[in-house]
């Protein structure tokens, strides 16, 4: 299982690479609500996460991902398998 802080840092980096302001990102940041990601950007973010962590994200877990923290926890679970 990968370290939570390490995963978090990579998510921040990924979001920063796609044009988000690092200073405004926290674990509580809502991906759609706060960052205003549209549906294509959500797909691009998930693709990036899959490639970066070499995981396959089952679609059903997305239903419970609202914040950056939710996403990091799911990735941690998936990399632990």
């Amino acid at each position, binding site marked *: 299982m990968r370290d939570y802080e390490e995963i978090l840092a990579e998510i921040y980096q990924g979001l920063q690479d796609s044009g988000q302001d690092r200073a405004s990102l926290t674990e509580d940041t809502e991906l759609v*609500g706060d960052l205003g990601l549209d*549906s294509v950007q959500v*797909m691009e973010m998930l693709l990036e996460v899959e490639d970066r962590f070499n995981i*396959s994200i*089952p679609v*059903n877990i997305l*239903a419970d991902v*609202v914040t950056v923290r939710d996403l990091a926890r799911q990735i941690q679970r998936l990399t632990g398998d």
Partner: protein
Amino acid sequence: MGVEPTPTIHALPLRSADFSSLAETLDYAAEGETGVNFYTGRGELQAALSYGELRRQALVLARRLAGLGLDRGARAALVAVTGPDFLRFFFACQYAGLVPVPLPVSIRLGGHGAYVSQLRGLLEGCGAAVAMAPAGVLKFLEEAVGDRIALHTYGGPETFDALPETDVPLQPLRADEMAYIQYTSGSTRFPRGVVITQRQVLSNLGSIIRHGLQVTERDRCVSWLPYYHDMGMVGFVLAPIGAQRSVDYLDTHDFAMRPRRWLELISRNRGTISFSPPFGYELCARRVSEEDAARYDLSCWRIAGVGAETIRAETLERFAQALAPAGFRPEAFLPSYGMAECSLGISFTPIGRGLAVDRVDADHLAGEHFAQPADAGTARVGGFIKCGPPLPGHEVVIRDGQGRPLPDRHAGAITVRGPSVMSGYFEQPDLTRASLSEDGWLDTGDVGYIADGEVVITGRKSDMIIIRGRNIWPQDLEYLAEQQPEVRPGDASAFSVPRTDGGEVVVLVVQCRVADAARRAALVRRMHRLIHETLGIDSVIELVPPHTLPRTSSGKLSRSAARRDYLQRLEEAERSGGGVEAALGG
């Protein structure tokens, strides 16, 4: 793994769905070697199932379902995840005399609650007796059922596979019985279940196979379309079985994430027929690099069908240009017109022609409802895609506001009559009467005209919004807004406007009394998120002062007037140099 895809060519003589039931349709396909193949997002073949094997498994399951002692025609709600289980259950229902109802897999970021209530609404709407969801999605189904809905049995595939097989003789659904119920929008509050009989769907399948696509013994289908959409289910599950062709499937979600997999699959397996709403072509055009295009060989792609939403030539031309190095031929584009209410297909353009744009005087069309062909002196030209002549046996008539037929090139309500038109909306007699006349004319809700014998669609008469091939009801969007503490009932109006890069975007205009800028911004963000979670679409949210939204003389909100006012505000903001942002209260 050693899994091999099912073959394209086999010895079984091609028949064009000339059967009396879907059960018989699979019986015949099962005599050949073709079947269905499922690919992962990484492009690996995960499972292959010949139609013979599908039939064998469906019959076993049908004998288990028959043992439940359900009424004939009882509904079986099936969460339609792309995969062998859905197909097995769908056909088990056919053999066991139950009516399958595909339910959507509309899981969005943060959308847990919204999905559960959607499932609950649909289970109630179709009066399901049993329900099945595969692993991963089962927890949502379980939550939706809870202790509020009384089902005979529900669970994952294994729950049903554990039932005992009975030896009572199976009585498959017959020609005049329902084939399935197809829900046409994701609406939780306004579900519309289209009832299609065996005879209706088989008539449409036959026409599509023989005339629309002229399927041959060398054809192979490729699809990422969801099974809960008419194009995915009727067009790429039932039609291939009706013509005994193999299909390669990619899950819809995997396609959305990696659209190039679709092209890779066509290239690798030598696919000849594949359809998509325009946005699918757009996604690919955006992602495909020159190196990608050089790696594919799409010269095999005979029919690149387009439908389910407004077609704009520019989007498709970009795709054709990007994929020209891969051997993609623009003549392969086959615009079509159809809807679940007519099983699937209404009209198809002639094979091998590609896009044909009817260029007309846009001002004349808007003012006089007549599509005057444009000439050198036309000030404003509008281009509309010609969608081909109606399928044999189907009549398309354009009508004025009083229901009187209009001559060629006169724009009006598009109405359709023919053997593939639905029986009605499930247990919704009022809705059915509003769409289907006693003498069999279906009011499509679309507006258009006939030119040179071909159907041309110019817009929509009803307020329904179509985004990425999906039907969205404005009432759902307005309801979401009205649920917010800052918003009162009757303070929201939803519609769609064209995006600059093609396609449509939803606009929600909301009357808001809150003055504080931070609270206004928070409201906009929250609604944007809720719409995303519930419907999976992007939206523009405009906050306006009270009494801004226009009303009709009877005091009802008018969406078309709200849309007109919005576009006017946008135009004024652009003219005054304030930019689009200034016009949006967010």
